[in-house]
């Protein structure tokens, strides 16, 4: 028994030894933490809302899942441009995927309103081109946040629109000043299909269509009965240049278009191009076109002039006068079939088919030049002549002379009465004169840097149309024409085309 007890003791000690001897001291890194498994899927309508969890921007946008979210309850906030923030609770559970869907637009608080205001009350309101009930002033409610086009329509006012952005629970103002079209209607790139706001010339053809020359976008033909526009430019037509200098319709209803790249004649839809390569024209920059008493056309270019029937071409030598700069600007035919040419720096040239006479502002000078040209000192307010028109009632020619500060000339108008050139004082708003027109009723129209001036008698009342006293869109008027309905069409440099329906 004693032996058995000893043996048992020995076994126990041995087992303890075994157990202790096998213990190894080897360092190990701590086990990886148990990671949470919750997945939360969040979607919204509209989507693309930023997801915040417990106030932290997760950098995720709906629809998206937040993975590995520790089990528990969280506050999720969705932030979306134009909408109010939406917060809600979610539960992250390792066993079940949590899914939630937020429909912003089902919440009335997420909608917004537009307050529609026009300067004149009672305008019809269109939201994204759909008519809404009510007229201005009126607030359209319950709109889904986003960008809207708001249009207004009112009799005798130009239909106009604006874009506004609607936000949740806010009232956005759509305020539009409706332009009064009772007297003036403008045609600009913003309000019509006109290809440019920088216009150079306008005529009314035999069909009462308006041909409008632009500085940079060719020719636009506007039919204001059908409100249709037709655009001709270098890309879609044979037009040699988009810079138009003159438009003219002859008795055969042919349209002549002067450009900086040559002359265009459109005859019943057929285009012919004339330039220095196929005519005696000295250069391609056409500045004026007129017809004389013989039915021949005079085409003025920067450097010279040609006379043509389109079958024959005759080069007229102007340079014998030695005009400085060779820059010819305007051509006028008087009742005696004399040709008057304005120059940029050298005054006025008269051609009576045999003799050239140069009229300049300056001391009296006589020259023994060929033919002979005679130099006169006359009452020309400057030597920069940019416009001219024949006055059939007076048998006189009215010239527009620009100020030329280098020589101290103030500019203005000068009149040739058949005998002498004299300074014709007209109270214009500006002496930068771009165009002169004298109509069948002997009314004179002068387009200047500061609006239009209209008058009947040279020393009578002058009516001015400019931005300060009318709705014309620009003071820089360049040309005008009167259509068959007596409406005045005015081109401007920067303000597009203006139509005047009032009295003048």
């Amino acid at each position: 028994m004693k032996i058995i007890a000893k043996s048992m003791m020995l076994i126990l000690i041995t087992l303890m030894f075994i157990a202790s001897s096998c213990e190894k001291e080897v360092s190990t890194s701590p086990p990886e933490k148990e990671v949470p498994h919750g997945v939360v899927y969040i979607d919204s309508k509209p989507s693309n809302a930023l997801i915040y969890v417990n106030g932290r921007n997760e950098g995720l946008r709906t629809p998206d899942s937040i993975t590995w979210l520790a089990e528990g309850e969280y506050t999720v906030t969705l932030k979306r441009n134009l909408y109010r923030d939406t917060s809600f609770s979610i539960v992250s559970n390792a066993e079940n995927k949590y899914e939630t869907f937020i429909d912003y637009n089902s919440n009335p608080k997420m909608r917004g309103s537009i307050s529609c205001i026009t300067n004149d009350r009672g305008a019809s309101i269109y939201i994204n081109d759909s008519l809404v009930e009510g007229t201005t002033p009126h607030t359209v409610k319950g709109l889904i946040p986003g960008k809207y086009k708001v249009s207004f329509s009112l009799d005798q006012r130009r239909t106009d629109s604006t874009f506004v952005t609607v936000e949740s629970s806010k009232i956005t103002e759509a305020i539009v000043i409706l332009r009064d079209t009772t007297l003036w209607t403008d045609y600009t790139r913003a309000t019509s299909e006109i290809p440019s706001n920088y216009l150079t010339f306008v005529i009314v053809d035999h069909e009462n269509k308006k041909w409008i020359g632009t500085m940079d976008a060719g020719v636009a033909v506007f039919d204001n009965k059908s409100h249709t526009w037709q655009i001709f430019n270098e890309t879609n037509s044979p037009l040699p240049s988009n810079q138009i200098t003159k438009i003219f319709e002859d008795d055969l209803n042919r349209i002549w278009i002067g450009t900086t790249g040559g002359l265009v004649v459109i005859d019943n839809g057929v285009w012919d191009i004339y330039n220095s390569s196929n005519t005696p024209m000295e250069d391609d920059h056409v500045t004026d076109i007129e017809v004389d008493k013989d039915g021949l056309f005079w085409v003025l270019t920067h450097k010279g002039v040609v006379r043509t029937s389109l079958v024959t071409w005759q080069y007229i030598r102007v340079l014998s006068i030695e005009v400085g700069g060779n820059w010819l600007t305007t051509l006028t035919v008087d009742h005696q079939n004399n040709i008057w040419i304005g120059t940029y720096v050298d005054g006025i040239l008269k051609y009576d088919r045999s003799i050239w006479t140069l009229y300049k502002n300056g001391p009296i000078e006589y020259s023994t030049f060929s033919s002979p040209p005679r130099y006169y000192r006359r009452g020309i307010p400057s030597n920069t002549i940019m416009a001219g028109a024949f006055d059939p009632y007076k048998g006189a020619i009215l010239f527009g002379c620009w100020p030329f500060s280098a020589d101290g000339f103030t500019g203005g108008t000068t009149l040739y009465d058949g005998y002498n050139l004299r300074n014709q004082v007209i109270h214009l708003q500006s002496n930068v004169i771009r165009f002169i027109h004298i109509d069948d009723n002997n009314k004179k129209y002068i387009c200047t840097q500061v609006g239009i001036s209209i008058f009947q008698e040279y020393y009578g009342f002058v009516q001015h149309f400019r931005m300060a006293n009318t709705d014309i869109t620009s003071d820089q008027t360049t040309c005008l024409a009167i259509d068959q309905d007596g409406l005045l069409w005015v081109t401007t440099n920067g303000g597009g085309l203006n139509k005047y329906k009032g009295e003048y």
Partner: protein
Amino acid sequence: MIKKTLFISVISILLFYSCEENFSPKADYQRRYALNCVINYGQEYQIASVSTSYDVPGFDPYKNTDDPFLSNVLLRIWVNDSVFVFQDSVEERSDQSRYKNPLHFYYLDNFEAKLNDSIYIEAVLPNGNILSSRTKLPKQISTVGEGTDISIPPDSSDDVSIVRTMWTSEDKFLIYQPKAVIPYQLKQGGVTTNHEKEVPIEYLQLSGEEIAVFPIPSFAKSLNIQMSAIERALLDISGDDDKRDKYTIFPMIIKIAVYDKNLSDYYSSTSRIIDEYSVRLDEIDFTNIDGGFGVFGSYSIQYLSKPFDAEYVRSFGYRYLF
């Protein structure tokens, strides 16, 4: 007695057998993860990497040839309320001696932060593990008037042979790495090209050879450059070119890389020559990533301009523009 002897023998064999297990110095392999990202202030483009540890048979870690890059990581950076989510990208690996596959990395191309901004990075790994860390961009530094020569050559300091620059910052215990450069233009054949000449702080004679000494990262907030080194740098710009009027010199610029606290700690723990009190660690021992290993830090490069005296530059035959 025989029974007793037999019993003891059996127990001894059992004992011997039970302990017959080879001891290995390698612990049981457990996967670990590393996140590395150093924010370069002022850059929209930032890169980061997330990798996993690996095991190899034996003890040579270079036997592993499987790229440890970890893909499908949701890696984000928060700066105030803005969050930037990294995209992953891949590039041709230039050194394919170990890994043959293309180089993977994460990048941002729209990062924005201001000096002194706090930045938090978080990587959610495909298995749900999260690695995270914080840093703070260094604050703006400014020059200290008393310890700084305002122009080159110095005209007011006691020692005109040294150009001194001293700066200060509200941040404490950061490491600065200054670098002085002279920008210049060379006009040749109608074409103007821009260049920079790096300026050492001094030249040392070592075994008869002249060695240029450049500034190294340190806690010091000053930089002293020998005038002789600047003169040498100016001469080196044109070298043997006699037509020195082709060269236009601009004021010297001192570019100071300011390491944030994390990078400063990292650098001072791994560099041998910060100061005599620092303890150098092996690179792997330093981490500031919660949940794993790696380094997350930031640095900014700030610029101080030091104009030359115009006559001084012209005396070399150069043009000078400031």
